[in-house]
């Protein structure tokens, strides 16, 4: 049975990917909030924020990308929740298949859907004047960090997807994540914030990830930030995966 893990997961992933490609509006709505934020900050507030020699669109794009992922994974929770509610989740679980493939299909689809949304946002940023001299390896490093962050948040999204009792509940967990970049180095330098806020901003996961991506784009050394960023991503991933599997076992027991 587990011999079929890959082919079963592939078949199920094909299904969930069709859900994405047949409702491209979910990709658009994933990208629309971050794009609107980007327009607001660059053309309204940006002039008042001192980011030194860096152009403001370059400065804030990393935070916007994390915001895109946070809003994208709420659709992952939504798609999984719909499967559970409609009964198709149980149909799959009653079939002689690699049962965890149902979850992996949603996880892979989440990665693909978020990647499309991220590309879309980067394209808009380029139109707004974002420029980077980063080479292929730096871009790959950025993509790697973003994918790892998406994977971590996707497993987090699996938890409400499996256990929420309403559609609203399944999507609502993403809101705090979407706003987390505001209290970080994503939009304004943390040194302008008052003591406790500054402490929080400097020690929450978004700041280290934002700083890493910003430095990669600016061809600056990433320093210790990249290790802090990776530690946060892997830490969230491990905890979320354990909790998601616990929720999954409760569901199928």
């Amino acid at each position, binding site marked *: *049975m587990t011999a*079929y893990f890959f*082919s*079963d997961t592939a*078949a*199920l992933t*094909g*299904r969930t990917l*069709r*859900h994405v490609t*047949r*409702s491209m509006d979910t990709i658009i709505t994933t990208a629309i909030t971050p794009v609107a934020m980007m327009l607001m900050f660059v053309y309204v507030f940006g002039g008042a924020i001192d980011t030194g020699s860096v152009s403001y669109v370059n400065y804030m794009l990393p935070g916007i990308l994390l915001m895109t992922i946070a809003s994208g994974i709420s659709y992952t929770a939504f798609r999984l929740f719909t499967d559970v509610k*409609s*009964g*198709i989740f*149980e*149909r*799959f*679980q*009653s*079939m*002689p*298949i690699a049962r965890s493939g149902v979850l992996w299909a949603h996880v892979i689809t989440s990665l693909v859907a978020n990647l499309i949304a991220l590309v879309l946002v980067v394209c808009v940023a380029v139109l707004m004047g974002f420029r980077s001299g980063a080479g292929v390896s730096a871009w790959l490093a950025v993509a790697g960090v973003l994918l790892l962050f998406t994977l971590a948040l996707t497993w987090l999204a699996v938890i409400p997807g499996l256990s929420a009792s309403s559609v609203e509940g399944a999507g609502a967990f993403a809101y705090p994540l979407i706003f987390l970049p505001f209290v970080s180095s994503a939009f304004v330098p943390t040194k302008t914030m008052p003591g406790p806020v500054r402490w929080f901003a400097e020690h929450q996961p978004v700041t280290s990830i934002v700083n890493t991506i910003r430095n990669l784009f600016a061809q600056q050394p990433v320093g210790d930030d990249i290790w802090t960023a990776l530690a946060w991503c892997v830490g969230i991933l491990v905890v979320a995966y354990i909790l998601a599997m616990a929720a999954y076992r409760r569901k*199928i*027991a």
Partner: protein
Amino acid sequence: MTAQPIASPAIHVQGLRKSYGKHEVLRSVDFDVVPGSIFALLGSNGAGKTTTVRILATLLKADAGAASVNGFDVATQPANVRESISLTGQFAAVDEILSGRENLALVARLRHVEDPDAIADDLLRRFSLNEAGARRVSTYSGGMRRRLDIAMSLIGSAPVIYLDEPTAGLDPEARIEVWDAVKELTRYGTTVLLTTQYLDEAEQLADRIAILHQGRIIVNGTLAELKQLFPPAKVEYVEKQPSLEEIFLAVIGGGDKCDADGTTTGGRG
């Protein structure tokens, strides 16, 4: 009332119990299903029908008792049980966003049968869904959706099929479509466990009927046996008025189907 001894039942359920907190849903359920027969589990809402099916489909663990399907124990050999069964859900668990053909091909892929697309086409034809095959399921009528659901459960030729309330919420015409689809199943020697709250559905389809009430099987027998439990039939002369269902079917042009069904029932009963 008790059945003749059965060598190896397709489904064997003994002393099955399940509670949710203090609420006892099943309080010792026993029944056997003969291979190749249609067995109806009849009961009102909340009688425990769906709970029984979920346990037999390895989706839920029983608190006590034993159940086996096709000779495999549901608690200790769940993988073998899943190889032996096909579940059609109460709420027609088909994918709304995919087309009918894609739904069938997906199940065929997951059941690892050869040439999934050919199987999908064949089933679309057999269940008169040919023209709708390329359309998204969200555009289907309730009856079409349920027929697709049943067609999906045929893929992989599982020896045992569970039909959990196959006609709940359907209009009379669609109900007859689904009944025809269920009768189609038995032509291939499939064992069917049917749950329903409609008496006439059990009467139409089942070889054996068990009535589940408050978590226990209170009656189990063939329709003829069940009829013997009641006082002998009296002969009365009553003018035969068409029922509203007959009028409805005649007006919308489903009359032929209705007649055909009437004959089959006559043959059966």
